[in-house]
């Protein structure tokens, strides 16, 4: 089902995206454990409403809470959604825009193989960025003499990746229907932004893919919430299926 030559070609073409993603997320993750003290001073000196000072103070006084909420609830969450749509947006639309889709579709590959191989290569690229940067964050935490339990911290990884796959496949589905990779990525990113905004609406809070990615229950228990994981993987598969169906029905 997966074409290894195409898989390798996709990874070669994506290498600069992977390197850029690793640099940005890696540097951000590595700096988190070292910034906690500076942020404490900053919160003390900065004029701000008392409720905000109270929330920030709570986070900064509890290092595991600070690390989890900043990494899985903010930095990695935003980066993984952004890189998901940046990697997936041009996968088909970019080929169409560069006139290389005809080249690809005239090779001995089925449409199913093309989509699945591209999805696999993109998912691996995204997975590498999320996994490596999380490991860097963990190592930096130890280097800053702020150790956290490894199994506990890594339990946030799977929901984060599953949620990123939802946005990846959403952008892929839009990419199949477009001849502009940027447009596909921007629309998928726009939908993600709406979901981020939905977290501010009380009845929706905690019910979106975004909050499932932040995995607050894993923070408390150190276990993966399999219900949320299953839901996100099912949604990601549904979107992949929609992309596949649209691609099979379209003329190249």
């Amino acid at each position: 089902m997966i074409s290894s030559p195409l898989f390798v070609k996709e990874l070669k073409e994506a290498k600069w995206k992977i390197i850029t993603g690793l640099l940005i997320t890696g540097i951000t993750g590595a700096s988190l454990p070292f910034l906690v003290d500076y942020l404490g001073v900053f919160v003390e000196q900065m004029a701000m409403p008392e409720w905000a000072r109270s929330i920030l103070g709570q986070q900064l006084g509890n290092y595991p809470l600070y690390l989890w909420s900043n990494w899985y609830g903010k930095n990695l969450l935003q980066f993984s959604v952004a890189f998901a749509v940046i990697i997936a947006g041009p996968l088909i639309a970019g080929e169409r825009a560069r006139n290389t889709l005809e080249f690809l579709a005239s090779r001995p590959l089925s449409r199913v193989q093309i989509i699945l191989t591209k999805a696999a290569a993109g998912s691996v690229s995204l997975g590498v960025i999320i996994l490596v940067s999380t490991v860097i964050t963990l190592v930096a935490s130890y280097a800053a003499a702020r150790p956290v339990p490894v199994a506990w911290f890594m339990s946030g990884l799977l929901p984060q990746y599953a949620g990123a796959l939802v946005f990846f496949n959403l952008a892929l589905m839009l990419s199949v229907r477009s001849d502009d990779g940027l447009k596909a990525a921007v629309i998928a990113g726009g939908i993600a932004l709406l979901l981020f905004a939905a977290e501010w609406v009380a009845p929706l809070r905690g019910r979106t893919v975004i909050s499932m990615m932040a995995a607050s229950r894993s923070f408390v228990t150190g276990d993966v919430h399999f219900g949320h994981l299953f839901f996100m993987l099912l949604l990601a598969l549904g979107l992949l299926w929609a992309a596949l169906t649209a691609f099979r029905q379209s003329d190249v």
Partner: protein
Amino acid sequence: MIEIRNVSKSYNKGQIKAVDDLSLQVQPGEIFGFLGPNGAGKTTTIKMIVGLLEPDRGSIVVNGYDIRKDPIKVRKSIGFVPDNPSVYERLTGIEYLNFLGDMYDVPRAVRTKRAKELLELFELTGDVGNLIQSYSHGMRQKLVLIGALLHAPDVFVLDEPMVGLDPRSAHNLKEIMSRHCQEGKTVFFSTHILDVAERLCDRIGIIRRGKLIACGTMDQLRHMANNKETLENVFLELTEQ
């Protein structure tokens, strides 16, 4: 061998008939030239042969495989050169050729030998390590040609292959096409360069508004066109009617 039977294809929900009940056969060992004015349906026909477009009606059989039932086997037996040499710009020339070699399961040793010969023939040896984005249009066209020949296809399908080629490369391509057909393989190509078609082709088909209006050897076409001497005059006579 290529066998096209009663094939039709239209666009815009049937409003534009690009190919209309087209039937023709190209035998092994034959070079077939496909001519026609702009928008006559040449590229649509070629895209249907290589499986890029699905015919609305009719059937296409290549090398014994039906394009609808065995599209992968059809594509595996075809070397296709599109009218626009768009290739992956972020790969180097050699990465591109290896990508194709892997895709068509060409063994390493065979691929290396063939690529070396073809790169020398098209004077691309010195550039093959460079990124394709630095190539000129003609160099890209040559790279696409080399890529299409790398797996020694039984059927060679080319859409306007001479465009962008320098005279030496155009000459080499004609040699390759002749050699290909002497080996019992099939060559199907579209062109606007009528001299090339006249000198190279065993048979020529002329398409106009999606319909095949003439098909045969040069002598047969001359006969159809009131004994006009050159292919240019034959073409003008037949496409005017």
